[in-house]
């Protein structure tokens, strides 16, 4: 009844298997560990612990050393990740995977973390919520996201998801004296835990169907053996449950209800971080799941198609009628989840390249855009569009940078946002999903409307006169410059990112349904 494919019966044992003979426990193996590929994760966790300890010894008001320590740690981790760029292996008894796809997404996660760190001290001071525990939580969340990116073992992915989510729940509730922050934390927590339960049940069904929770093993099972109907149906149910859980985390319609409320209520610095990192991590898992179960694509496809089209439509239309900039960006994040899911639907090399490119570029855009909103903390943290109007008069530099970021979000050349959409558009055409490509194009036009409205309001006449110009903190200048110039650079020379992305996507084996016979 079970496919005779797993456990000791499988014809090829992976390379890490070393028989462990002690008493009757010979079934267990000692994992061989490739320490070099573990280094980025280890560095981030070690940095988090170091920051946690340093925080205890520092006077309460001095957070600059913590930020610096965090940045150094992230830098080292990024270096290790860059060194590992060409690796393609699985280590630690199959629980950690190092490949180029993971390297690109990990670099996006690390970059978003570093940029958030730059903005955080100033924001926390302006809001008077200077809790030193914020920094270790941020770094732990990063380590969780990195695990989600670089593991194909669903149980480890689940643990990484929980590490990231728990830290994010607390960060959303960081402003403990404000009802709206706590409400957003409560909402995020209850719905997030609900979604995790779905994901977990999906893992349980996968374990029952395939005898393993390692996606690579699952793919091998699917490719090598004629399947019994039994394990096929269980696998489909498992995929459905996991889609619900991951849809929540990636805020795909109809699982997006929490996104605007949480994004708006949480302290802006937490929103900045979660909008980039949670999205990258959730999509990394979606990519791994979808591309390792491609033989089921004919069943997946209509579901993903609907999720993608709905997210693009609902996200963009709802963003049109919002009056708060944070809510506009929240619905825009829903819409971007829809654009990204186009790559999953087309499930080809171009789609994967496009997703990697867009995820990297999107994390720059969203960190920058929310980063500008953190500046509003000194004006009572009002983020309505009318409060933003006339930002140009207060702070011309910030307004220019924000305009570039908004253009990139709208997908207008010469910015990286355009190329991301372009690759995804091409991938949809390549996979013969013409209608999806059309929806992508049309909703992008709708999207451009509200981004441009927001951009124009920055240059409008301010309501209050005389205008008091703001001093912009140096870290924010650095952060905005990195985001905006990076996006323009990638817009002018997309190959700098597109080529590595294409290389990474070539590492992924694309097993189309035609390559194997699901029908007996």
């Amino acid at each position: 009844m079970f496919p005779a494919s797993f456990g000791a019966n499988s014809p090829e044992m992976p390379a890490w298997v070393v028989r462990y003979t002690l008493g009757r426990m010979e079934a267990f193996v000692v994992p061989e560990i490739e320490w070099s590929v573990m280094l980025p994760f280890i560095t981030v966790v070690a940095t988090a612990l170091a920051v946690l300890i340093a925080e205890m010894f520092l006077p309460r008001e001095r957070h600059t050393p913590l930020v610096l320590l965090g940045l150094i740690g992230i830098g080292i981790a990024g270096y290790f990740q860059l060194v590992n760029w060409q690796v393609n292996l699985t280590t630690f008894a199959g629980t950690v995977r190092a490949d180029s796809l993971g390297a690109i997404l990990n670099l996006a996660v690390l970059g978003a973390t570093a940029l958030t760190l730059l903005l955080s001290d100033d924001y926390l001071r302006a809001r008077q919520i200077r809790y030193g525990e914020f920094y270790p939580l941020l770094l732990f969340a990063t380590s969780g996201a990195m695990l989600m990116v670089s593991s194909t073992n669903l149980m480890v992915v689940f643990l990484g998801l929980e590490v990231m989510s728990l830290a994010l729940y607390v960060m959303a509730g960081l402003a403990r004296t404000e009802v709206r922050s706590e409400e957003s934390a409560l909402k995020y927590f209850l719905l997030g835990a609900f979604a995790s339960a779905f994901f977990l049940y999906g893992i349980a069904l996968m374990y029952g169907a395939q005898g393993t929770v390692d996606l690579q093993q699952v793919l091998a099972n699917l490719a090598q053996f004629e399947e019994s109907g039994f394990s096929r149906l269980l696998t489909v149910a498992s995929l459905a449950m996991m889609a619900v859980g991951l849809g929540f985390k990636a805020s795909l319609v109809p699982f997006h209800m929490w996104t605007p409320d949480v994004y708006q209520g949480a302290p802006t610095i937490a929103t900045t971080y979660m909008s980039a990192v949670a999205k990258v991590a959730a999509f990394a898992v979606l990519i791994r799941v979808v591309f390792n179960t491609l033989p089921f694509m004919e069943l997946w496809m209509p579901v993903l198609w609907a999720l993608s089209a709905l997210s693009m439509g609902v996200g963009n239309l709802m963003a049109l009628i919002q009056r708060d900039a944070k809510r506009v960006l929240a619905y825009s994040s829903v819409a971007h989840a829809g654009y990204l899911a186009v790559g999953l639907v087309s499930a080809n090399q171009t789609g994967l390249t496009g997703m990697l490119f867009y995820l990297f570029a999107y994390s720059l855009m969203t960190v920058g855009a929310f980063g500008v909103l953190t500046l509003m903390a000194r004006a009572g943290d009002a983020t309505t569009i009318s409060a933003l109007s006339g930002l140009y008069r207060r702070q011309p530099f910030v307004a220019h940078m924000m305009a570039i970021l908004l253009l990139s979000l709208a997908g207008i050349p010469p910015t990286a946002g355009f190329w991301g959409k372009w690759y995804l558009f091409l991938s949809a055409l390549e996979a013969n999903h013409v209608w999806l490509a059309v929806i992508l194009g049309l909703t992008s036009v709708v999207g451009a409307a509200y981004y441009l409205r927001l951009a124009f309001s920055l240059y409008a006449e301010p309501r209050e006169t005389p205008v008091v110009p703001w001093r912009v903190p140096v870290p924010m200048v650095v952060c905005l410059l990195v985001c905006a110039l990076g996006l323009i650079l990638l817009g002018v020379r997309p190959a700098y990112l597109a080529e590595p992305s294409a290389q990474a996507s070539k590492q992924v084996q694309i097993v189309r349904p035609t390559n194997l016979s699901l029908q007996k």
Partner: protein
Amino acid sequence: MAERLLFFLLALIVVSTAVGVVTNRNPVRSALLLVANFFSLALLYFLLSAQFLGVLQIIVYAGAIMVLFLFVIMLLNLGSPEPATFSEQGYRRPLAWLIALGMFALLVSQALVVAGTPPAQADPQVGTARTIGYALFTEWSFAVVVVGVLLTVGVIGSILLARRRSA
């Protein structure tokens, strides 16, 4: 036969207490029913030859976690019954039925698929602490480290949230 009878009894308790948790108005009663639910689940784990986890379920879940729940309910004085049992927002009720039926249909259909699987005999050493310990410290050693990180995050988070200190 005895095993089937035992399973049937325990399943009955599990089902009725689970329904009780949801339908009961009083949070304290819900919590106590949940303890009963976890306890009978632990006994089911024994039937599935998972002795170690059965014990752990009683100690950690029915013991520590539920005590924490009850403690918070008492601390916050949430023990009074809810004004109305269920959420008043109109759309939730049909949504709930939809979810329930869809979920149950999906999952039961899975159960029907496996009906007729020959009953398996678990390896006699599978549920012991020794075997699980071996597995934890060989194949799953990395995941154990990650659980350590997770618990650290939980500790930092709850300290940050619960401590009475202004910034």
